[in-house]
């Protein structure tokens, strides 16, 4: 594989990412799957990078799930998004920092719609005014939270306590990166590096000492389409998509998977357990699974945060093998001790038979 070819592609797809003063819009379901991730992101931005990032407690879900499941009509979601922008404008911000990939896709899609069809924009201004009395401005810059971490990856690398290196062998960790579909497949120019070879996670992994695994199904969807999995009879689609990816990455023996979408790491994590229960097959070393991380958790681990504070005990596929490889000290007894040492409850079964 020739890097120069990829570097050329990355340079063709550069995008502007705002520098400071972000208005943070959270993901509605991410807090359930990866409880500590958004908090870690805010901590990194405020304490380590000293940036101004503000979130308004009145902001809502973008309703992307409803929109993509054909329950929420387009006019409604435009108005909801307009309300988010109104909150942003009222707080005096112009840069949007988006936590979820679906939201990122929704915001981009709606802003592009308003650019191409100004009549829609007028309609929505009208709707919002009637419904809530608010007015809004379109944000000047819409950046996904992973774009922001990507932009400051070198500064995080400078503070790194645990680079992405296998402490037992001294070699860089082999990490599979997975991008949420709506990050760049809808609008390739809105994703760092375009749709075919996105660079946002590659940049982070390489800046922090790791090695990226490039495998044939790297751009394949993981199957977290709402229509696919919301109904149990459809869930086979989602499962089959993720399984295809696992089979494709298995020969490369990756140490971890990292993703920047709320749903993708959830599926890549949980489906390993399901496949193991259904067929007895695992894809990692020693009959274990491949640990899955969000990019905030990866950044947190690199910076030396406590993995249990970041919520990594909630992963289905055990992360201890990865923590051991990275040389991160953790107390296994404190795994299910929540904040203030109060036991949060131990699950009946974890991981893939390990």
């Amino acid at each position, binding site marked *: *594989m*020739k890097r120069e*070819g990829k570097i050329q*592609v990355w340079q063709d797809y550069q995008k502007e990412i705002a520098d400071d003063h972000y208005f943070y819009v959270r993901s509605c379901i991410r807090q359930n799957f990866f409880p500590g991730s958004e908090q870690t992101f805010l901590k990194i931005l405020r304490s380590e990078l000293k940036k101004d990032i503000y979130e308004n407690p009145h902001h809502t879900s973008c309703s992307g799930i409803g929109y993509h499941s054909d329950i929420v009509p387009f006019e409604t979601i435009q108005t909801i998004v307009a309300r988010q922008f109104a909150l942003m404008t009222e707080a005096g911000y112009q840069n949007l920092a988006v936590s979820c990939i679906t939201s990122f896709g929704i915001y981009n899609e709606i802003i592009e719609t308003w650019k191409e069809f100004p009549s829609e924009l007028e309609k929505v201004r009208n709707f919002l005014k009637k419904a809530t009395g608010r007015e809004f401005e379109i944000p000047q810059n819409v950046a996904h939270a992973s774009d922001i971490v990507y932009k400051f990856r070198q500064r995080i690398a400078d503070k790194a306590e645990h680079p992405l290196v296998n402490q037992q062998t001294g070699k860089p960790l082999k990490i599979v990166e997975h991008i949420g579909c709506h990050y760049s497949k809808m609008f390739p120019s809105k994703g760092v590096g375009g749709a*075919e*070879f996105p660079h946002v996670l590659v940049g982070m992994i390489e800046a922090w000492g790791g090695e990226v695994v490039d495998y044939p199904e790297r751009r394949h969807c993981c199957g977290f389409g709402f229509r696919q999995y919301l109904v149990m009879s459809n869930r086979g689609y989602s499962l089959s998509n993720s399984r295809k990816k696992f089979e494709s990455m298995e020969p490369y023996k990756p140490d971890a998977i990292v993703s920047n979408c709320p749903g993708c790491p959830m599926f890549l994590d949980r489906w390993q357990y399901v496949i193991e229960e259904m067929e007895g097959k695992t894809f990692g070393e020693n009959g274990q699974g491949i640990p899955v991380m969000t990019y905030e958790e990866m950044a947190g681990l690199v910076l030396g945060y406590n993995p249990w504070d970041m919520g990594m005990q909630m992963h289905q596929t055990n992360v201890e093998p990865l923590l051991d490889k990275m040389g991160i000290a953790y107390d296994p007894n404190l795994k299910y001790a929540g904040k203030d040492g109060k036991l949060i409850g131990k699950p009946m079964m974890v991981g893939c038979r390990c």
Partner: protein
Amino acid sequence: MKHIVIIGGGIAGIETASALTDAGHWVTVIEKEAQVGGKLNNWSYLFPDFTPVDKIKSVLQEKCSEKDFSVLHQTEVRSILRQNGKFSIETSGEQQLEADAVVVATGYELFDARRKEEYGYKIYDHVITSADLEQLLLPNGDLTVAAGENPKRIAFVHCVGSRDEKSGNHYCSKVCCITGVKQAIELRKRLPEAEIYCFYMDLRMYGKHFEELYREAQEKYDIQFIRGRLSEASEKIDKSLLIKAEDTLSGRPLKMNVDLLVLLVGMEAGKGTTTAAATCGIGCEESGFLKTTDSFLKSNFSEQEGIFLAGSCTAPMSVNDTILHARSAAQEVNNWLLRK
């Protein structure tokens, strides 16, 4: 005696120069490279009958040495101005030429396959273009792939950079399909044991003996033709390529591993032609190729009186089309000069 300046010393330029010299005119050819022949220097065997390219090249060289037209090598045109019914031309070599007529024969460029990033040209090790393969099909060319072995399975991809909204080229580049069939047969002769596939959207076998060559490829050389456009190519851990297409005729998606992927790249107008258009004040089509007055009776005339067009700067052309077009250009220039 009238002076004609020809921009471009490829097949079209030299052929036009030769015919105009025979008609008794004084001709200067301006060529940007160190040698004449243009893109003919990149090909080895010509379709459809595998004529070695040296046969055409040697005739061109002969015309250059024996006929009385001059060639300015490694020179480009800076500007052209109309003055007193003639053309005043300044070259990059600081020369000032005066001409009664100008012929634009700036030719084409091949589509840069890096723009189709999903096929991984210059990213994956074993993805090459038809131009690369043409060099490798010479007797001393090295066709080995991963682990130093000959490829066991090779796939050709048609329509790379042509008929494609994403590449910005809507037109058909005409000669790539027959090039694919020709190179598939040549590969078969070199690698008798290999499996060779051509993934096409349509097979454009427009010319004399083209359809017969296609049938021969299927019948005698066991080339498999699969109708379906490749969506992507990915590299596997052993450096072979996983390709995905649809077998449209059976209505199912298809995937296979190949050891070598050959992209049949199309022709584009290229920088030389675009610059010539600006310098001469000639319009371009949406495709980027130069506009001719019409396609039937005046396909060598441009919008500017006295400036004529020859060869693949007007549209994708094969070698024999180019030679015919060039000779026709010479005739039109001659007639126009006689009438003036």
